[in-house]
C-alpha cells in the first residue's frame, strides 16, 4: 500500500448539549464522532457509509477542520492539521477540498459561475502545475483556468456568465466539483456527492469523479449513505455506526463477506434491481432505530439492535476495531467476528430473518 496521505487517529467530535436561560450549563455531549482511526493512501478512494446520524458527515468536516475536533489527531501528508494556526491552515486547505451534498445550497445564488470558480484562485492563486499553462496569477489567467475547468467537468463554455438557478441539479453538482478541483488539490472529501440527483444523472457525476481522479491523481474520501454507489467508486470502505467505525475492508471483500452484524444487516437491506436476486435473498431486519448519540449504549454500541447478540461481552465490553485472523486487510469491531464468519453464530430470532418466499412458505409455522 502507498504511503498514506491522510491519517486519522482517535478522532472525536463531541457537541455540548446546553440547557438553561441565563447560565448555559452543559448537561451532556452528543458524541457525533467518537474515536475514529483510518488511513487513506495516495490516489486511493476511501468510502464512508452509514445511516443518517452516524457521524459520517461530521467526520468529513472534522478532517478539514471545518468542525473543530474535540480529541484525536488528523495527519495530512505528515502534518498535524489540528495543531496548525490560521495562516498555515489556510495554506494547507488549498490541498484539501470538499464537494458538498446539495449543490443548490452550497453555491451562492447571487454569485455567477465565473465568480464562484475564480474565487478560490483569488484566495490561493493558481496551482504550480497550472502556472506553466496559464501564466502568472492575473484576472485573465484565472478566467482562462476557470474556462478550461468547465471543459473538464463537461459544462458548456457559455456557463461562466450564468447563475446557479439556470442549471439543472447535475450541472450544479458539476460546478461544485469544478470549484473544488480548480486548485489541483491532493485530497477531495465528497459528502453525498450524488444523493440529490436523479438516477440517470447520478451515473454521469460518478463517472466524472472517476475521470477526474485519473486525470488529476486525486485522493478521495467519499461519504454516502448509498452503499452501492460507495462500493462502485471506492477501493476501501469504512462502515460507521453511531460515531465509530465498525468495519473496514476492501470494497470487493466487504460485499463478498461482511463480518460485522451491522454490515451484514445493512447489506441485506439494500434492494438490488434484479427480481431474481431479490426473490432468492435472505434478509435480516434490524429492530428499532438508531439510539441517541448523546447517550450511546454501553459495551458494543450495536448490541441493542444486533441480531447476533450474545449473552456475554456484548453489553459491557467495548469491542476494539481489530484485525480478524484469516481475513487480511479487514478490521472489524465485533467480539464474535470469527464465529460469525465461520457460521458458528446465527440469528436466533426468526422474526428478524426474512427468508425467500419458497423457503419461508415451508418453514412458516
Amino acid at each position, binding site marked *: 500500500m502507498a504511503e498514506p496521505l491522510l491519517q486519522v487517529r482517535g478522532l472525536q467530535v463531541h457537541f455540548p448539549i446546553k440547557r438553561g436561560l441565563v447560565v448555559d450549563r452543559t448537561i451532556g455531549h452528543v458524541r457525533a464522532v467518537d474515536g475514529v482511526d483510518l488511513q487513506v493512501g495516495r490516489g486511493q478512494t476511501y468510502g464512508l457509509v452509514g445511516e443518517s446520524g452516524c457521524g459520517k458527515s461530521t467526520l468529513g468536516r472534522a478532517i478539514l477542520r471545518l468542525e473543530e475536533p474535540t480529541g484525536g489527531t488528523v495527519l495530512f501528508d505528515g502534518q498535524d492539521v489540528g495543531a496548525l494556526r490560521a495562516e498555515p491552515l489556510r495554506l494547507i486547505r488549498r490541498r484539501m477540498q470538499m464537494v458538498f451534498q446539495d449543490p443548490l445550497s452550497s453555491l451562492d445564488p447571487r454569485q455567477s459561475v465565473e465568480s464562484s470558480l475564480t474565487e478560490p484562485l483569488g484566495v490561493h492563486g493558481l496551482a504550480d502545475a497550472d502556472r506553466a499553462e496559464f501564466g502568472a496569477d492575473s484576472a485573465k489567467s484565472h478566467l482562462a483556468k476557470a474556462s478550461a475547468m468547465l471543459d473538464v467537468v463537461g459544462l458548456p463554455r457559455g456557463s461562466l456568465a450564468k447563475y446557479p438557478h439556470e442549471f439543472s441539479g447535475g450541472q450544479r453538482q458539476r460546478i461544485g466539483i469544478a470549484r473544488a478541483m480548480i486548485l489541483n488539490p491532493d485530497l477531495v472529501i465528497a459528502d453525498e456527492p450524488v444523493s440529490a440527483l436523479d438516477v*440517470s444523472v447520478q451515473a454521469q457525476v460518478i463517472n466524472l469523479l472517476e475521470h477526474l481522479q485519473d486525470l488529476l491523481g486525486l485522493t478521495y474520501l467519499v461519504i454516502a449513505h448509498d452503499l452501492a454507489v460507495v462500493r462502485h467508486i471506492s477501493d476501501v470502505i469504512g462502515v460507521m455506526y453511531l460515531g465509530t467505525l465498525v468495519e473496514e475492508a476492501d470494497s470487493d471483500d466487504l*460485499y463478498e463477506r461482511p463480518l460485522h452484524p451491522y454490515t451484514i444487516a445493512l447489506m441485506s437491506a439494500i434492494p438490488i434491481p434484479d427480481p431474481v436476486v431479490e426473490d432468492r435473498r435472505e434478509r435480516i431486519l434490524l429492530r428499532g432505530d438508531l439510539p441517541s448519540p448523546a447517550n450511546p449504549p454501553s459495551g458494543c454500541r450495536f448490541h441493542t439492535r444486533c441480531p447476533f447478540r450474545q449473552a456475554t461481552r456484548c453489553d459491557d465490553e467495548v469491542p476494539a476495531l481489530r484485525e480478524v485472523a484469516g481475513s487480511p486487510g479487514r478490521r472489524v469491531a465485533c467480539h464474535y467476528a470469527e464465529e460469525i464468519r465461520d457460521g458458528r*453464530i446465527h440469528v436466533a430470532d426468526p422474526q428478524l430473518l426474512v427468508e425467500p418466499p419458497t423457503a419461508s412458505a415451508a418453514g412458516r409455522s
Partner: protein
Amino acid sequence: MSPVEQHTTTASSDRTLVSRSRREPVNRSEVLLEVRDLDVTFARRGGRATHAVDGVSFSVRPGEVVGIVGESGSGKSVTSLAVMGLLPRRGVQVRGEVLYRGRNLLTMPAGELADLRGSELAMVFQDPMSSLNPVVPVGTQVTEVLLRHSDISRSAARDEAEDLLRRCGIPDPGRRLKEYPHQLSGGMRQRALIAIALACRPALLICDEPTTALDVTIQAQVLELLKELVADLGTAMVMITHDLGVVAGLCDSVNVMYAGRVVESAPRRELFEHPRHRYTEGLLGSIPRLDAPRGDPLQPIPGTPRDVIAWSAGCAFAPRCRHAADDCVVPDLGLEPLGRAGHLVRCVHPAPESSPEHRAPRDHRTTELSGPSGARALSVSDSASTTAGEERHG
C-alpha cells in the same frame, strides 16, 4: 420489526391483521382500480400549459402491487394525486377515467369521494414530516380517520389506534399516541403515516415514495410491513418510486414513466430481464449494483430529464437516446405490445430481446448466514427480551 411478533405480548394477540378484516373476502380476479387514459394538464398564467400526465392507463387487482417508476418530473406523483382526487381544482384539468369498482372517481360527487378516501382508498405520502400535522398529537391523527369512517366510540378508537401503531412496529404505542410528530424519528413517523393509511383497512393503498426519506435498514422494515399487508389482507397497492431496487423486490408489474407517459409496461421479471425501451435499459445500466463486479464504468444516460420534446412532436426521450434516429420524430408514438405477453413498449427502435448488458449474473450470497434451524456453537439471545431482563447464559 414485524407487527406479527408484537402483539403476541399483548391481550390483542387473537386479532391478527387477517382476522381483523371485516370486509367481504377479496375476489382476487376482480379489477379493483382501472385508470384509463388519465390526462392531467396544469394551466399556467401567461405561459403554456404543462401536460404532466398524458394518457396513462393501468389496472390493479386485489393482492397485486403495481409499480410506477420514473425520475423527477415524469408525472408519477401527479398520477397518484389525480387518482385520489387530491389535485387542486383551479388551473388543473383532469381527463380520462379512474374506475374504482366500476365507479368513476373523477366524476364522483365530492362527498361520496370523501367517504371512500381514507376508508377504501388510502395513500402514504413521501415526506412524513410535511404530511403529518405538526401541532396535533399522533394519536388524534390516527383516531380522526377511525371516527370519520366507522361508527365507534372515542375510547374504542383510541384502543384501535394503539393497536394499529403496535402492528406497524412502533414500540410503546400508548406513549407515542400522546406525542407530536417532531418527537418521533423519521422511520417512526413514516410508520405512523402507514398506520393512518391502514386504519380502516383500505382495499387500495397508494404509496408515493414511502421509503425515500428513510435509511435502508428502516426502509427494509417498512417494505416488509407493506409486503405482509398485501399478502395477508389482499390489499391492492400502487407503488410509486424512483428506486428500481424497491420495485424489483415488491411489485408484480411495473410501468416506467417518462415525461408524462408510460414508456414501458411489463411484469416485474420480464422488465428486468428484457428491458426493451431504451430509457429502461439506460436506467438499469446507470445504477451501480451492489452485486455487480466493480471496475466497469457505469453507462449513464446523457442529458437530464429536462431535455424533452413534446410527445406530440416525437419520442420525448429521443434527445437523450443513444439509438435515436430521424424516424423517432413521429407524433404520438403508441404503446405497442412487443415480444412476450403483457409487455408493452413505446419505442421505434426497441432494444433487442436478449441484450441484458447491464446484468451481471453472479452468485449471490443468500445462504451464507444459515437460518435459525442451523447448528449453533454459541447461542444467540433475543435482544428484545434480554434488554429488559437479565442475561441468560446459553
